[in-house]
């Protein structure tokens, strides 16, 4: 087991104090294929839960990355600019997208733990 929580849109989060780190799941990166470009929000930008927060572009398609929680973007992963394949290599590590200061911790309650997310992916025919 790890300490990640997952959204139905295949983002993961890791909570430390009132800041969550956000990325896309291993399943999501595998479905996307080779990632070639990541567009990140500006630090300081406010994001809404389930609203657009970033864009990830692979050889297959460009997809929205949604904010799993509402809050303020406090930091983005600049390393993805030069090395977008980090998302493929280390989806839940060095391939993180952004850190968000959470407005309302109760929004985290609807997210899934690892086991529930695995079941969710299986139920999607993945």
């Amino acid at each position: 087991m790890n300490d990640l929580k997952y959204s139905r849109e295949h983002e993961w989060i890791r909570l430390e104090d009132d800041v969550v780190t956000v990325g896309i799941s291993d399943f999501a990166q595998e479905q996307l294929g080779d990632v070639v470009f990541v567009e990140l929000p500006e630090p300081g930008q406010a994001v809404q839960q389930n609203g657009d927060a970033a864009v990830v572009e692979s050889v297959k398609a460009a997809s929205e990355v949604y904010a799993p929680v509402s809050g303020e973007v406090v930091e983005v992963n600049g390393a993805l600019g030069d090395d977008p394949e980090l998302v493929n290599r280390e989806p839940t590590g060095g391939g993180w997208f952004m850190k968000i200061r959470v407005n309302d911790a109760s929004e985290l309650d609807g997210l899934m733990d690892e086991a529930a997310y695995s079941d969710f992916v299986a139920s999607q025919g993945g």
Partner: protein
Amino acid sequence: METYTGNRGLRIEEPLIFEQDSPGRTGVDLSDVPDVEDRLGGLSRTEPIGLPGLSEPQVMRHYTRLSQKNYAIDAGFYPLGSCTMKHNPRLNEKMARLPGFADVHPLQPESTVQGALELIDTLAHWIKTLTGMPAVAMSPAAGAHGELCGLMTARSALEARGDARKRVLVPDSAHGTNPATAAICGYDVQAIPLNDRGRVDLAALQDALDEDVAAFMLTNPNTCGLFENEILEQAKAVHDAGAFFYCDGANFNAIVGRVRPGDLGIDCMHLNLHKTFSTPHGGGGPGSGPVVLSEALAPYAPIPWVVHGDNGFALIEHAADSGESEPYGRMKSFHGQMGMFVRTLAYMMSHGADGLRQASSDAVLNANYLLARLSDTLSLPYEGPCMHEVLFDDSFLKDTGVTTLNFAKAMIDEGFHPMTMYFPLVVHGALLMEPTETESREGLDQFIYTIRHLAERARSGEADAFQEAPVHAPRRRLDETGAARQPILRWRPDITLGEAAE
């Protein structure tokens, strides 16, 4: 087998033109420049500009060989879904090259271009007749430009009644340009899900509609190749909420002569003249995306437009001359894509009402022929019959180790341009095929047998071969990831191809 030259048969391995440089070689013989006073104020060149030196026959061969590497609708079947890659009748080209159309300038006096203005006016009449709409803006340059025109018209109408609104609703089965258009027009985009029949979920649309929704953008038939058979209910819901109904007409080829979108309650729709009325991608002309408008939106249409004046046809070029109308502005410096107008009218006139109706009917028949002959081999996410295109998903490849991408690459080895892949996003590993009315029964049968053959190979454990495909294409399998991550966009004398590949 590798050859000494790198050529394969009569397919020539052609270097870049810069790599064929032989300094001083030239196809023209110019006199020496006389010694004159330099008036360039110190801006004259200090170094050569780096043009390669070649003889005329070398240049001819270079560009002829490059043209032979091109794949086009004139070379073979092009089943790219949502693109309507149909034959471009040669009559269109002959008409577009008539000097009275090809050699006029948009700034000529109106009295000298009465024929060109009459053609725009006549085409506008037939576009309005085919769509059942009262007005049309002819100038937009292509589909996405037409979408923007439609939404800007809707925004102008909303602002004129003091009700700007904030959101645009776009179903998951819309063309990808629709949400982009709404965003560039300053609206928040809200996605509307599909139901299990591949059509817009009417209840979800009704739930999403409120006094903040400016417009609903429907693609009909949608990108699943299906007719939105609840469109009348959708139109009512949209209008009850005070919003406008945008219809993306890029798939109009499925319904020309059979359905008038105006009868379905839409407020605006763009037409891709360069798809529905021939001349698709690379077919000899640029795009053209006129937008038909309802009574409610017509007053806000952009300038210019053609009117019947006292002395023949005239152009309204300025808002001040537009009478009761309140045009929101201008989309294009001149009057639209004249060459495409000529080709479209030639296509309409040469087909006639019965021919246009038959073309759309044959396009739908061909797509359903693919559906019927392939649905036992491939996997069909939504039940047919379909309209102009048929959508399959990749569940037929489950556990084979072959992906949609690899399957499409193998199509190239068999001499076909691949179908559209991974779009629309609503199904997994989409394969979207649009045969158009152009293809013969024999051509479709060859395509069908090829797909059945490849599906059989995938099921019999030949995944490795698919990963190498295409092996017969001039450059074999391209490194698409490398091309996207580290593109080399410009040749420089100091890099060689070997280094570029690393």
